[in-house]
C-alpha cells in the first residue's frame, strides 16, 4: 500500500462519547445540617436506643469537664498549651463512640478528647501538650494515631492505613479528624482523592468550628459547604449539626458501616463552634464578638442533649448529678497526676532517632552524657561545699 492509499484509507474515528463517570446526585449533602435533637426524628432514637443517649450524655459531661480541667492546667503551668474543644464535645465523643475496637482514629492536636473518649489515659493523651515527649502512648494499644500538628497531614496516613488493612483482608475503618482550616491544605485534597480512587474504608470528619485561629470560613473557602467538596472526589458528603450528638452518631455510624461494607470513603462536615480561643495563647476578642459566642452557647451540645433526655424522662436530677460526679472524679484524678512532675531522661533524645544510633549520634550521646555527669558533679560539689559551710558554722 502506498502512502497515498494509506491516506485515503484513513478515517478519523470519532472521539468516544463523553459520559459522566459518577452520578453526582446521591453524593450531594443535605441543604441544611442534619439534626435529630428537637425534631421528630428523636422519637425513634429515644425509643430504640435510650442507653446510647445516656452514654452520649455522660461522655459529653465528662468531656466538658476534661476541657475545663486541661485549660486550668495551662494556667497553672502544667501544660505548655491546650487547644480546647469546648463546644465541640459532641464531635469528639461521637467520633470515638462510632468506632469498633479494631478501628483506627486519626486525631489532630485539638482532638485529645476523642482519644480519651476512645479509652486513652488522659495523662498520656496530654503528653504532647505537657511537653515531656511528642506522643505519650503506643498508637497500637488503642488504635489511636499520634496527635497530628501539621494540618491535614494525618489524613493520607488514615487512607494508607485503611488501604493496607483492606489489602490484608481486615475489616478496619479509619476515622480521620480535621478542622475547617485544614480543608484548605493540599494534603486534604490528596487524601480525599486517594481514598476515593482506592475506595479506602475511611471516614473524614471535618469539624467546621468557624475559625482557623482567627480566619473565618468565608476567607477559607468559596465552596457551598465543606461537605460539598466530597462530590468532586466522587464520594458522598454529609452535612450534620456538630452540636447534636445524636445526629452525629447516626451520620458517622452510617459512614463507618458504609466504609466497612466496601462502599468507600465519606466526608462528613459537622457544623460546630469553638467556644474558647484557638489555644490559651490566643486572644479571640481580636477577631470575633461576644454576641456571636453567646449565640452559640445557646446551642450548647450538652444542654441540647440534656433538654431532650429530660423532656423524655430519660434523665432526672439524680442522673445529672451522677454524670457530674463521674466527671469531677475524672478531673480530680487528672489534676492530681498532672501535678506530678514527669520523669525525664535527657538520654532519651538519642534513643529512638534510628533503630540503631548512627556513629555520629553515638558521639553526640557521649557528649551529652559527659555534660550531664559534669552537671551532677557540680551539683555534688555544691552540695559538699554547702555541707562544709554548714560544718564551719
Amino acid at each position, binding site marked *: 500500500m502506498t502512502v497515498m492509499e494509506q491516506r485515503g484509507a484513513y478515517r478519523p474515528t470519532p472521539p468516544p462519547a463523553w459520559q459522566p463517570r459518577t452520578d453526582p446526585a446521591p453524593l450531594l449533602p443535605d441543604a441544611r445540617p442534619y439534626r435529630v435533637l428537637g425534631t421528630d426524628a428523636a422519637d425513634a432514637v429515644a425509643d430504640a436506643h435510650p442507653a446510647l443517649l445516656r452514654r452520649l450524655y455522660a461522655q459529653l459531661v465528662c468531656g466538658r469537664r476534661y476541657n475545663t480541667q486541661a485549660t486550668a492546667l495551662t494556667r497553672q503551668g502544667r501544660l505548655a498549651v491546650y487547644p480546647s474543644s469546648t463546644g465541640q464535645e459532641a464531635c469528639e465523643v461521637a467520633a470515638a463512640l462510632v468506632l469498633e475496637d479494631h478501628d483506627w482514629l486519626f486525631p489532630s492536636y485539638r482532638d485529645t478528647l476523642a482519644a480519651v473518649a476512645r479509652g486513652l489515659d488522659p495523662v498520656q493523651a496530654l503528653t504532647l501538650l505537657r511537653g515531656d515527649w511528642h506522643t505519650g502512648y*503506643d498508637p497500637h494499644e488503642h488504635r489511636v494515631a499520634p496527635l497530628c500538628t501539621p494540618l491535614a497531614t494525618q489524613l493520607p496516613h488514615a487512607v494508607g492505613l485503611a*488501604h493496607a488493612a483492606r489489602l490484608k483482608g481486615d475489616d478496619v475503618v479509619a476515622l480521620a479528624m480535621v478542622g475547617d482550616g485544614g480543608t484548605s491544605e493540599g494534603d486534604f485534597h490528596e487524601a480525599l482523592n486517594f481514598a476515593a480512587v482506592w475506595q479506602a474504608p475511611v471516614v473524614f470528619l471535618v469539624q467546621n468550628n468557624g475559625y482557623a485561629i482567627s480566619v473565618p470560613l468565608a476567607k477559607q473557602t468559596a465552596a457551598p459547604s465543606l461537605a460539598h467538596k466530597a462530590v468532586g472526589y466522587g464520594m458522598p458528603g454529609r452535612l450534620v449539626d456538630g452540636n447534636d450528638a445524636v445526629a452525629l452518631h447516626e451520620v458517622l455510624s452510617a459512614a463507618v458501616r458504609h466504609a466497612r461494607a466496601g462502599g468507600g470513603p465519606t466526608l462528613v462536615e459537622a457544623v460546630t463552634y469553638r467556644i474558647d480561643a484557638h489555644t490559651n495563647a490566643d486572644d479571640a476578642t481580636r477577631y470575633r464578638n461576644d454576641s456571636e459566642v453567646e449565640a452559640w452557647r445557646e446551642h450548647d451540645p450538652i444542654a441540647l442533649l440534656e433538654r431532650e433526655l429530660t423532656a423524655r424522662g430519660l434523665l432526672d436530677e439524680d442522673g445529672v448529678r451522677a454524670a457530674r460526679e463521674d466527671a469531677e472524679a475524672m478531673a480530680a484524678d487528672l489534676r492530681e497526676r498532672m501535678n506530678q512532675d514527669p520523669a525525664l531522661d535527657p538520654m532519651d533524645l538519642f534513643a529512638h532517632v534510628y533503630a540503631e544510633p548512627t556513629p555520629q549520634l553515638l558521639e553526640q550521646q557521649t557528649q551529652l552524657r559527659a555534660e550531664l555527669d559534669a552537671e551532677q558533679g557540680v551539683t555534688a560539689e555544691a552540695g559538699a561545699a554547702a555541707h562544709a559551710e554548714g560544718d564551719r558554722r
Partner: protein
Amino acid sequence: MTTVALKPATMAQALGRAMRDAMAADPTVHVMGEDVGTLGGVFRVTDGLAKEFGEDRCTDTPLAEAGILGTAVGMAMYGLRPVVEMQFDAFAYPAFEQLISHVARMRNRTRGAMPLPITVRVPYGGGIGGVEHHSDSSEAYYMATPGLHVVTPATVADAYGLLRAAIASDDPVVFLEPKRLYWSKESWNPEEPVPVEPIGRAVVRRPGRSATLITYGPSVPVCLEAAEAACEEGWDLEVVDLRSLVPFDDETVAASVRRTGRAVVVHESGGFGGPGGEIAARVTERCFHHLEAPVLRVAGFDIPYPPPMLERHHLPGVDRILDAVARLQWEAES
C-alpha cells in the same frame, strides 16, 4: 566448583531485580508511585513487577507526591513495607512535609512504638540532557533531616545490594538513584545476586597514595576517570565511594585521608551548603595533623540547575577535578 555465567546488566535492571527479590521474599513489600505499574516506570526500573505481583503490590497511584508518601506512612503504620518511587528529584519536593514532619520522625515521636520502614527511591542528578526540574541534586536537603538514612549507589552490584538493604531496613531510607548511571553496565550474575550490603559503609574504589577523592553516586565514575588521567601527572589517587551519606562512614574516609594526607570532595550538588562542606569539616576535624593541604571541594556551581545545552559546564568533570588536585600544595613535597 561451578562456573557462574556472568551477564552484562544495567543499574536499572539491578534495581528492578532488587525490588522483585524483596517482594518475593517478603509479602509486606509494596511498590507504589506514578507510572510504576503498567508502564514499569519512566526509567523502566519497576518493569514487570505489576505483572508478576499484581497491581495491589505494585500500584500506579494518582499523581500527587505528598499523597503517595503520606499514604505510604499509613501503610507502614499497618505493617507494610512500602517502596515509593518519586519520578524525578525535583518532583519529590511536594512530599517534603510528609518526609520531614512524619517519615523521619515517627519512630522518635512514638518512642520506637511506630517505626516506618519506608524506602523512598529518588532518581537524582544531571547529565542526561533533562530539561528544567529533571536534574536536581537534592541530597543536602535529605542529609539535613535527622531520622532518615540517605544512600546512593555508583555500581550495578551496589544498586542491588543497597536497595535490598534499604527495603530491609526498619528505618526510612532515601535511596538516591544516579539517573545517568541507570544504563551503566557491569558483568553481573542475575542468578546469584550479590549479598546485601550493610548501609553506612564506604568503600575504596581505587587505592592510591597521593590524595583521596571523596565522592558518591554519579561522580564516582568521573573520579575514577580522573584518577586514571592523574597517573600521567604522577599522582596516584585513591577514590572513596561513600555509598551512604547518612550514616556517614567517618572511619573509612579518615583512614584514607590519613594515608594520603590530601583530599578533594567531589559532587554535583552545589558547593555552598552542600554535602562537601560537612565532609570537609569532618575530615579536617579528624585528620588535621595528617593533612598537607586544605580539603578542597569540586562541586556544581551555586546556580539553579542549568538547561541541558549548558549542563556540561556545571557538572564536575575530569579537568576540574585535576585542577583541584593540582592545588593541593604539592610544592611542599619537594
